[in-house]
Structure formats: C-alpha cells, structure tokens
C-alpha cells in the first residue's frame, strides 16, 4: 500500500514518492453494477427459455436504446444538480413532427429532402425546448424540476395540437429503418445508442465542457468564481438533453411506424432518472458516470425482461421492480458511515 506511506515521511513541504493512482470510488460502484448485471444474465441463462439467442439480445437492445439515449442527456443534467422532467414530452413533440414533415405535400414531393428535414427539423425543435428549459434554469434561477415541469405539462399538449390528437401512422421504409434496421444482427438504434454513449463519455472525460459540468454541479459558486461560464454550461446541458430526447422520440416513432403523441415517451423521465441514479449519478450533482448510466439502463431493462419472460404477473412486476431498485441503489451506496 503505497498510499499508506504517502502520508508519512514528509517533512515541511516535502512531497515524498508519487503513489500509484487509486481506484476511484466510482469504479468500485461500476464494478458492483457490472457484477449485478452479470448475475442477472446468468440467472436468465439458467431460468429463462431461449435466453441465449441473438434475437433476445436484439429485443433487449431495441427496447433499451431509447432509454439509454435519453438517460445520457439526463445524466448530464443531473450532473449539474438539475433534473429534466420534460424529456418524455419532448420525445412526443419531435415524434409528432417527423411524420408531419415527411408526410406533408412538400415532403412527399421531395422524399430525400423531406426525410432529411424530418430528422433535422424535430431535433431543432427539441433543441429549442432545451434552450427554453436551460434559460429558465440559468437566467431566471428557476428550480429545474419546476422549470422542466412546464414543458412536461404543456409539451405533450403541443404535440397533440400538432397532430390534432390523432395517431399518425405511416409507411416510410427509409425512416422506419432507424427503428427496425439491423447491422450485424443488432438493431441500428442500438449502435446509435452505443456510439452516443461513447461520445458523451469522452466529452465528459476529456473536454473542458465535461470538467465545467462537474464543477458546476459540484459547487456552483466556486465554479463561477473560478471563471466557469455557469449559465452557458447549463444551457448547453439542457439543450443536449432535449436534443437526445428528440432523437429518442424519432426512434420510437420509427420503431412503431406510428406517432402517438399521447403516448410516446410516457414516464420516460422516470426511466431515465432511474437508469442514471442506478448507474451512480447523484441527484445533488457533480457526478456524470456515463458508463454507469449505460449499465444502469441495461440492468433495469433486463430486470423487466426477466419478469415478463418468466410470466411474473403485472401487479407483481411493480413490486419486484421496486425491490430491485432498492437493492441496486443500496448496494452501491457510498454514504454509509465512516
């Protein structure tokens, strides 16, 4: 234990030998989560019929991908000490817009452009939602849960107004590919989610934005005094979160070949928060364990899959999920007494 020595043998201003970097607390937590995930997989192998099939993987990936994408953004927001309740509503808005765009007269006349616009347009609108949330939080100092509650309440209403409340169904193979296409046997959106997770993880670790993010969440006043552009960082964070939610909305719509403004993204905020927190994020801010979020989402997904696949009744599913959340959060708890 070189760490032990490092506290001794130092005179006035002495430094002593540089000890090996310690395994951080976060890593221990991640290992715990990974172990739990592995245990769950093994349990399924033993218990669940036909578990070891590529199709099982594909099903789980397709079900978890939108949650992962939203949870990535949510993790960033949580890292600032905030929370974004509006993600589900933003999904609905983006999801409602896409078919409106490529299904419009113009979109049908210019399929290529229409398709492009059906991606970009909704994402821009989603970004604008993030800008709105972020501005309320950072310029007006509104508490995040309330600031984002506004769009949580009215965002879905906007989506419903846009579609006049109708379920919009469509056939557009190029768009649907986003939700149903596969590469190497795995749904395309799974690859998208994975790629995004990597990008976000690198952003958090390596970029100045990532560092600012953690300092803003860790101690906003100190960060601000050190010249961190607090407002900008927060606005970008909400913007990123909303844009990712918009993307998830597009994916869900593509998956279903239908956009149901009343339903898309329902309760997504809770799923995303749960994934982030099970993954090790602290709601008080200052931590952004992206890999943890990924594992957390996978874990929750697999729990759900296990219960459904083994015929646990719906009512019991609620209770079992509750128990698992408790155990998962408890196991990785770092606040136990010293």
């Amino acid at each position, binding site marked *: 234990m070189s760490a032990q020595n490092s506290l001794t043998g130092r005179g006035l201003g002495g430094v002593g030998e540089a000890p090996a970097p310690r395994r951080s607390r976060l890593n221990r937590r991640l290992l715990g989560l990974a172990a739990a995930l592995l245990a769950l997989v093994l349990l399924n192998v033993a218990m669940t019929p036909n578990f070891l099939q590529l199709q099982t993987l594909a099903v789980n990936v397709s079900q978890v991908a939108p949650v992962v994408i939203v949870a990535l953004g949510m993790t960033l927001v949580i890292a600032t000490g905030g929370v974004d309740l509006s993600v589900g509503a933003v999904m609905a808005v983006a999801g409602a817009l896409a078919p409106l765009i490529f299904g419009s007269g113009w979109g049908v006349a210019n399929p290529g452009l229409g398709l492009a616009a059906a991606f970009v347009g909704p994402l821009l609108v989603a970004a604008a939602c993030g800008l709105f949330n972020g501005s309320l939080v950072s310029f007006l100092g509104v508490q995040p849960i309330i600031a984002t509650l506004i769009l949580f309440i009215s965002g879905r209403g906007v989506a419903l107004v846009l579609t006049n409340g109708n379920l919009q169904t469509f056939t557009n193979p190029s768009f649907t590919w986003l939700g149903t296409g596969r590469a190497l046997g795995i749904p395309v959106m799974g690859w998208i989610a994975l790629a995004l997770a990597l990008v976000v993880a690198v952003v958090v670790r390596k970029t100045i934005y990532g560092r600012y993010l953690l300092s803003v969440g860790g101690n906003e006043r100190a960060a601000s005094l050190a*010249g961190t552009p607090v407002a900008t960082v927060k606005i970008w964070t909400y913007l990123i979160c909303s844009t990712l939610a918009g993307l998830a909305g597009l994916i869900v719509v593509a998956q279903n070949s239908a956009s149901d403004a009343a339903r898309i993204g329902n309760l997504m905020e809770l799923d995303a928060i749960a994934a982030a927190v099970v993954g090790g994020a602290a709601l008080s801010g200052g931590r952004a364990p992206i890999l943890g979020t990924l594992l957390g989402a996978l874990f929750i997904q697999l729990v759900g899959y296990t219960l459904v696949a083994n015929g646990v009744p719906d009512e019991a599913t609620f209770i079992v999920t509750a128990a698992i959340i408790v155990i998962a959060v408890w196991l990785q708890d770092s606040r136990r007494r010293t």
Partner: protein
Amino acid sequence: MAESLLRMTGIQKAFAGVPALRDASLRIGPGEVHALVGQNGAGKSTLIKILTGVYRRDAGEVLWQGRPVDLKSPREAQGAGIATIYQELTLVPQRTVTENIVLGYEPRKPWGAIDWRAADARAREVLSRFGIELDLHRALGSYPTAIQQLVAIGRAASMEAKLLIMDEPTSSLDEKEVETLFGVIRGLKARGTSVLYVSHFLDELFQVCDAVTIMRDGRTVGETRIADTTKLDLIAAMLGRDAEEIRAAGRTEFSVGEQRAGEVFLEARHLASDRRLKDLSLEVRAGEIVGLAGLLGSGRTEAARAIFGLDRVTGGSLKVGARAARIRGPRDAVAAGMAYLSEDRKVEGIVPDLSVRENLTLALLPRLSRLGIVDEARERRVVEGFIKALGIRTADMDQPIRELSGGNQQKVLLGRWLALEPRLLILDEPTRGVDVGAKLEIQSIIAKHVEQGCAVLLISSEFEELIEGAHNIVVLQEGRSVRRLSNPGVTESRLIHAIAEQPDDALEAAQ
C-alpha cells in the same frame, strides 16, 4: 494534575485504508484550557470527531470522567456534556440567527410550544457576551463568516457543557473578537468548564491555555504545561524539526523590501457597489502588495467582490492596466488578468467531489485545452509542479479534495489562481486555517510572485501579516477607504489607531 476529565489513548483511525490517526492520545483535566496543535493534516479534527461520535474509532480507548465511553453521535456527546464547535462551520445558513443559537434546546412554553420570545432573549444574551447585535430574524447565512463563527461559538458556549471543544474558532476572527472570545473562555474556566482549543495562532495559546498537546502525522508527540514551553519549541515539535533550524526563519515570510513597484495595474476611484461598499479609492501597482485593513464588516470582502465583478458596481470608476474596465463577472476579471482567492473556502472555493488536480486547474482550463479538449498530460505536469512547489499533502493528485485537511485545501486553491499567472492577485484571508509551516510557505510563494511583478491586494485580519507584508495599507471603515498607510513605518499601534478612529476624523485626514 487531578483526575482527568477526559483521557483518550491509542486512538487509531483510517479512511479507506489510509491512516489519519496512528496513535493519538489526549488528556484534559477539569477546568483546564487545553490546546491541541499540529500541522495541517496532523489529525486534530479527526481526533475531535472521534471523541464526539462523528467517526467511529478503529482502535483505542476513551475515558470520560474516569469511565470508558463510546459516544455514537454528536448528540450523545452533548448529552454527556461535550459541546463542540467543529472546524467547518456547522450551522444552518437558511435559518435565522435565533434558531441557530437555540436549535435543539429551544425554550418552551408550559404546554410545550417553543417560546420564541424567550428564544430571542436568550440569543440576544448569548450574542451580547461577544458584544454584537444582530437582526435575530435574519437568515444567518446573510452574515459574514466571522459573524457566523461567533454565533457558533455563542451557541456552544451557552450549552452548559463540561468540556467545550473549539476547532480553530479564531480562524476568521479579528483581534478584537479574539479578545472577546478569550474573555468568554476565561469565564468558562472560572466556572469549571474545560476547553479544548485548536489553533494555528500559537501566540494565542500562551494567552489562554494551561496545557498543550502536540500532534504530528496522526500521533501525539508531546504534552506539556504551556508555561514550560515556548512557541519555538512548539513549532519544532509540530514539524519534527530542530528548534534552531526554525529560529532561522522569521516571523512571517513577508518582508517589505524597498519599493520596486511598477506601473499602476488597478485603480479604483470612489467605487461603490450594491452590497456594502460605499466609496473605495485605491491603486495597486505591479510588484506591490496593498493591504486592506478594517474591522469586521468594514467592507473588505465587498471591496474585493466589487473589483472582481461579483457585486454590481453602482458608482465610481475602475481602471485595469490604465484602461477603464467594465468587469461584469469573474470571467471578465480573469480575462483582465485578475485572480481572487475568496475567504470562504468551503462555499466559494473547493468543488468537494472533484480531485485535487481538477480543482487546481479549474480556472486554468481554457489555457490547458485546445478545441475544447483538455490536454491531460500537460495538466498533470502543471499540477505535479504545484503540488511540489506548494507542498500540498495529498495521497495523489486524483484524491478528492474534500479528503484533504483544511490547510492543504487552501494551498490547492492558491495553486488554482497562481497557475493563471495573474497580474493582480486578490487574496482574502489567504492563510486562514493554515498551519505555521504552510503559512510561511504560502507567504513566501506570494512574495516570490510579487517579486516577479505580480500585484497583490491582500485582505487579512492578522495585523502582523499586513504590517510585514504590505507595501501600502488601505484602511476601510464602513465601506469607505479612509486612510492609506505606507511602509516602512507602519506599526501595530498606528494601524489599530487608523482602524478604530472616528470615521469623521479619518475622512478628513484622507482628503
């Protein structure tokens, strides 16, 4: 000595495998004022927290009034008659002054409801012992650190304890308040209360303490009657050095050489802010240390905040580098070449969960990154350098800063600003809570930067530091700069006089 009130022996404690206490002991007699000294990180606060049930000890024995005890929480400790003022302010900033004083011991009406009238009366009485009067219904957090510290002391002192523990109670107090505090301590002693007193101001110990325990690297390395020792011996024991070696060093590492000051870097004229600053005029030159002196609440911190763009400037003018500057916030200030080490380390300084490295480079980040990517290799080199240069005691640069002792946190924060190579360094109580050794180091680092042409605005409650360190001292009263004293030639009595004289006379003199 008569039978001990408290006896701790063989105490050990490790955090995540890293030992903080290896073999600590402590013995306090009844009615004794006992000092506990040691370098930053020696384990003083940890020992206190073990005694009061904040942490559980790994090994060792605690005898309280002759009986072995195992206090499990601060509340149990209080129940046993131990009241504590912890090093980090432990009050509730959102709640009122009265509440913070009576919380947990509220006076009741016959039917059990809190008697707020009586509570206010008690609070007023407690505060009056320190000669301060506050709006009892204002949120405590709206008062400066020093006031909060006094409230914390007042609260603890009013608890009728057998042992009162004070972990660096004077770190943010001015001389006057320190005097008052000593009065209170003597009063307690006279009533038979023991006091455990932790401080880095060794001079203080000789004024009030009866005995002293010295700690080094988690061990108790000595215990003696205060009358049998000298400051030099204490320092030597704390550092584990020879007394002669220490004698070579001066009182402070500052010494005002002949003024080689360069051009004026900062010039404030009749500056006023929306806080408490009313009329501040001063100039700071490159290579010069300008001290700000004043009583508690005279607006020194506010002066720094206004200059750094933290408070809204409502009047007057500010020139930076000979040009009129509009500083709208810390970012502007940093861009203009300024750095500000604030007085409240915990609230405005450290980002607790981030590592020493990340804390140290927080302000420097833009310069360490290209296209938004942080050059970590370079970052590590920079941090390595500062850990060495400042003698920061940390397991490694990736240790969360919250796990460092207070003095070492302070050094990291100083490093944060020095790394910027600022042209003006604003230091608000830079050596608060820092041990003698580290203090000298910090002072010498500052001195070195000044030699290299850095301008420094130094706020300090320690006269010694100002007198020996500053080329010029600007005296503040009630938010106005009333006098400017130049070194050499400033003496403690002149300074005290300038600080305390009637505002009207002072203003006249300043005209």
